[in-house]
């Protein structure tokens, strides 16, 4: 059954992908990209990657669609037909594809438990997590503890990208907190927005703090948190959203999450361990791990949520007044 769903989802992905490339309207292509993400999120669920599916659904289908729409609003939504004949790119693509398919021929088959990727490291993580870390979700234990350095690096990339967007576009302060008359007409959006805003935030908190036990964690929670505020900004105007979370506060929070993560690392060094060795944080190693993971996941969540929301604010603040 799983194979059947997998096959159908992949075919749908392929159809969506082809349609995106063919579309001349960028608005339509953006909406299809959102569907493409949602399909791949469903595929991740079928392939047992629940944490990944949660992230992909929140990011691909949620925030990246909004950012693409914001960019289209600032630029144009029509794509001019290309002047060149697309023969050369087509040939390059077909040759590359053929070479890659040739490369897959000696790959271990899909779902094979004896594939090399399953024989090294992963069994150790699965075997040691209950004893060493004491949390059921192995993805969280690898992400936050065994590979805490990697995650710190990823967080630094997100931090840098946020800083880059801020440097490129700059934040423009704007007067007036009044709601735009265009939004005022969208009664359904406002009612639904009001209803869902607290629920989304509550769900984000659940995903944040339940990440040790079920699918979830700082990355997903941060994105869901930002989505809640973006929905608020869409329904009630940017000015009102900024009264709730001012832009200056976001800048501080972006750095604070990062510092919290590094701070946990330094604290464990001060207590006599290595950088990010949570075992020393509490009396016994397992509670130390618990504490460390909760703290660094919180740092991740704060930085991710603030960067996402900041990027959204920056894009929206570029839009001419009254266009919001």
């Amino acid at each position: 059954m799983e194979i059947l769903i997998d096959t159908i989802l992949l075919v749908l992905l392929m159809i969506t992908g082809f349609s995106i490339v063919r579309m001349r309207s960028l608005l339509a292509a953006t909406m299809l990209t959102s569907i493409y993400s949602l399909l791949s999120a469903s595929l991740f669920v079928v392939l047992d990657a629940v944490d990944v599916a949660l992230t992909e659904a929140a990011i691909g289908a949620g925030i990246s669609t909004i950012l693409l729409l914001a960019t289209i609003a600032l630029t144009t939504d029509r794509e001019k037909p290309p002047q060149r004949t697309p023969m050369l790119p087509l040939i390059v693509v077909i040759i590359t594809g053929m070479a890659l398919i040739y490369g897959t021929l000696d790959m271990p088959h899909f779902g094979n438990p004896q594939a090399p990727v399953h024989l090294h490291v992963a069994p150790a993580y699965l075997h040691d997590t209950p004893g060493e870390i004491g949390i059921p979700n192995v993805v969280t234990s690898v992400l936050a503890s065994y590979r805490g350095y990697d995650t710190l690096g990823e967080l630094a990339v997100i931090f840098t990208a946020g800083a880059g967007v801020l440097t490129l576009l700059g934040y423009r302060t704007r007067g007036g907190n009044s709601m735009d008359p265009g939004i005022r007409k969208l009664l359904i959006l406002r009612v639904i927005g009001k209803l869902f805003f607290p629920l989304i935030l509550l769900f984000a908190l659940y995903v944040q703090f339940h990440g040790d036990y079920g699918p979830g964690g700082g990355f997903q929670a941060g994105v869901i948190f930002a989505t809640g505020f973006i929905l608020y900004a869409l329904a009630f105007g940017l000015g009102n959203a900024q009264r709730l979370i001012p832009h200056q506060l976001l800048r501080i929070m972006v750095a604070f999450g990062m510092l919290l993560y590094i701070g946990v690392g330094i604290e464990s060094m001060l207590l006599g361990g290595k950088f990010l060795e949570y075992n020393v944080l509490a009396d016994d190693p397992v509670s130390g791990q618990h504490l460390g993971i909760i703290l660094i996941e919180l740092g991740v969540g704060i930085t991710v949520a603030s960067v996402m929301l900041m990027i959204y604010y920056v894009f929206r603040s570029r839009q001419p007044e009254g266009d919001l």
Partner: protein
Amino acid sequence: MSGLLGLYNYWIVIILMMTGFYAVIARPNLIKQIIGLFIFQTSVFILFISMANIEGGTAPIIKEGIRLYSNPLPHVLILTAIVVSLATTALGLALVVRIKEAYGTINEDNIHVQDEED
């Protein structure tokens, strides 16, 4: 799964990858190129997650009575990669907005023409 069907996932992933690649190299519109890059990225995610899958396995959340779990390591890599992909996409889109303001167009061909005129 046995036979050539066992590579089905990888082949579709390669087709998706090439679809994105084609959009990046054949389309002059910058937003379309970023969408192409997005398709490419997502197909790489699917490739990794497909490799992590074990037939008859379940999601890597430890529970009594379950013996076979999917490989958690690719999940971790891809989870963070997705968030990073959004951050880089946002940076790309910010560049597109700046290019639009500087050149008045987001069509690569027109940008080249303007560059040559200068």
